[in-house]
């Protein structure tokens, strides 16, 4: 069965600093990968999705970017963090019509 790893688990960053969150997947190949953000413990907002290496689509305009350098690696980045970037970031995967599986998440606080 597939496993999703995310790190770090928690992160505190100052405004204006860069960001790199990593998601890696085991136990499956060629998955669809997703980055979600959850603010204030409710409501998941889809940020990015990827159907393959180097293929990234963005759902909302924002201060963030994503990359998929390898089939099982998905990275969320920012050059300069904003206060509004605080939240709980979740990586998820599915394959075709399979159910969606979520990683443990990264809790980001921007001060």
């Amino acid at each position, binding site marked *: 069965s597939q496993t999703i790893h995310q790190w770090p688990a928690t992160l505190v960053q100052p405004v204006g600093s860069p960001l790199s969150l990593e998601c890696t997947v085991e136990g499956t190949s060629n998955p*669809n990968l*997703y980055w*979600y953000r*959850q603010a204030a*413990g*409710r*409501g*998941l907002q*889809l940020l990015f*999705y990827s*159907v393959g290496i180097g293929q990234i*689509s963005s759902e909302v305009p924002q201060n963030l970017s994503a990359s998929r350098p390898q089939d099982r690696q998905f990275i969320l980045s920012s050059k300069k963090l904003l206060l509004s970037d605080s939240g*709980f970031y*979740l990586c*998820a995967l*599915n394959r*075709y*019509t399979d*159910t*969606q*599986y*979520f990683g*443990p*998440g990264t*809790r980001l606080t921007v001060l």
Partner: protein
Amino acid sequence: GIQVEQSPPDLILQEGANSTLRCNFSDSVNNLQWFHQNPWGQLINLFYIPSGTKQNGRLSATTVATERYSLLYISSSQTTDSGVYFCAVERKTGGYQKVTFGIGTKLQVIP
């Protein structure tokens, strides 16, 4: 885009009570999932249910796709059922399954 509405937004139950959570969606979907997010943030898939009824222990779910709603039943609730329950619908868009979440129902089960 598709709208997903969940009700009630908050629910407090006495341990042992039963409850029904509702999810309405605004357009036809390929699939529907129910998730439970525990207090530590981990999202766990409960049901993958595009139509019909499924049961898993004290939980069951029914989706009536033609009427665009799904129900999640929790019987004999336990304190470990506390958390946020999300409904998520999937539509195939451009070769991948786009997932849209509702804002969730926050459940607190008190002893």
